[in-house]
């Protein structure tokens, strides 16, 4: 029995509700991914949390995966859609390898392929609910780009998804420079991830950092960041701004 008839406003473009074949909201989601270019390639960081709404349901989700020989993909948003994207890319790389002709898809090609996929799904009102970060190195050229669920794509020296855009990018804009060493790059990423850990409620203190260079991909073992909760501002947060939390 239907007690509450759900009604769409008259000017709605959404189509009949029986049309449940499209993504309406995400269910299991990952939070920010942050990445930057450094001297030898790309460094990317993401935590291992999979939230089910406000519950931190899954704590061992790998949100970064190598793609082919030259690329690394990190994703935030719906985890099942990320897995679907990995399947598409698996096929793509497989067919690319089957040519066996000395040519291979580099990070720029994979990024553009993903942009086409995301944008086409958006046009059908059935998006893959992800924000993707694609980084890689091919023939000495470093590449770092991002694609959103509506198909917005661009490249930059450092990118982030979700909350990372608001909390990590400002730090990167200030502290990033060309030819960072590996250690400095990791320190910078950890600085960003720590801020996210403090301020993003869907972040967990279990992260991986991935590196991609001409040689290949390495994804670190999960580890935790040291945190300090005894800042006086944390102890009495409403001091400077009454009513805040």
């Amino acid at each position, binding site marked *: 029995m239907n007690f509450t008839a759900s009604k769409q406003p008259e000017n709605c473009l959404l189509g009949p509700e029986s049309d449940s074949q499209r993504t309406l909201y995400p269910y299991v989601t990952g939070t920010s991914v942050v990445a930057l270019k450094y001297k030898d390639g790309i460094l990317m960081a993401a935590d291992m949390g999979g939230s089910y709404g406000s519950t931190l349901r899954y704590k061992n989700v790998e949100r970064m995966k190598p793609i082919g020989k030259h690329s690394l993909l990190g994703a935030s948003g719906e985890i099942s859609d990320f897995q679907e994207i990995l399947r598409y890319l698996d096929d793509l790389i497989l067919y690319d390898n089957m040519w066996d*002709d*000395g*040519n291979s*898809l580099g990070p*720029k090609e994979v990024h*553009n*392929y993903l942009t*086409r996929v995301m944008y086409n799904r958006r046009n059908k009102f059935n998006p893959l609910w992800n924000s993707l970060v694609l980084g890689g190195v091919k023939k000495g050229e470093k590449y770092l780009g991002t694609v959103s669920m509506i198909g917005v794509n661009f490249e930059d020296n450092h990118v982030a998804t979700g909350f990372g855009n608001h909390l990590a990018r400002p730090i990167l804009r200030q502290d990033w420079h060309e030819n960072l060493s590996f250690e400095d790059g990791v320190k910078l990423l950890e600085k960003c991830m720590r801020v996210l850990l403090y301020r993003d409620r869907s972040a967990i203190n279990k992260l991986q950092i991935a590196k991609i260079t001409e040689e290949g991909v390495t994804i670190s073992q999960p580890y935790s960041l040291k945190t300090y909760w005894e800042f006086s501002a944390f102890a009495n947060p409403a001091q400077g701004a009454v009513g805040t939390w």
Partner: protein
Amino acid sequence: MFRNQYDTDVTTWSPAGRLFQVEYAMEAVKQGSAAIGLRSKTHIVLGCVNKANSELSSHQKKIFKVDDHIGVAIAGLTADGRVLSRYMRNECINYSFTYESPLPVGRLVVQLADKAQVCTQRSWKRPYGVGLLVAGLDESGAHLYYNCPSGNYFEYQAFAIGSRSQAAKTYLERRFENFSDSSRDDLVKDALMAIRETLQGETLKSSICTVAVVGVGEPFHILEQETVQQMIDAFEIVGEQEGPAAEPDAAAAAGQEAAAADQGGSTEEGVAPMDI
């Protein structure tokens, strides 16, 4: 080649294991006017003989730009060549759109060959009657391929197809070892000399030939007629002023196909109605 009872259908094998329709299609390539290609490590030059039917008409297009990094020269049924060029352009542009990267020429050539093979295995189709010299660049450098109506493809340092191509091939065989390190201009000069070989005595002028170049840092483009004429003059390529006396009997060519099948065609356009 004599008419036999196994040559009506492309899908009928002969007892000797041949598909005559495919072989006849390759014959069409040999009747077309010459096209040549040669490459160095960084550049590829395509050239062809372009003779107009009459003084009133313009000549047919035999060299097509497929993409900034790929071009093709054809010999045989130019209509088939035009259609295949459109296919190639389509493939290149679709790949570029999806991957923002140029389609590797080796992959295009395989797709083209697969397309040609289909026509050798369907009873309601006929093989394409055109040979294609595909010139292109990819990650591994400069490439020149030859695509056959049979669906085969081969990679070459230098090659010539079409009527009297044997003369050009002989010239190229003598010189090909030096092509790898040739400069771009030397490559064009060699192309023009190879074209001259196929003219057998006629004066080489920019009005009867077309030359195109593609290379690292140089998108595929057809050279302007003036530029070509300047190069001809500079290299002092002037054919011997012999009359057209040394022509094999054009009439006999229709009946007997002797060993020199390549040179069976004559300067008379009427013998091979299918192509310029």
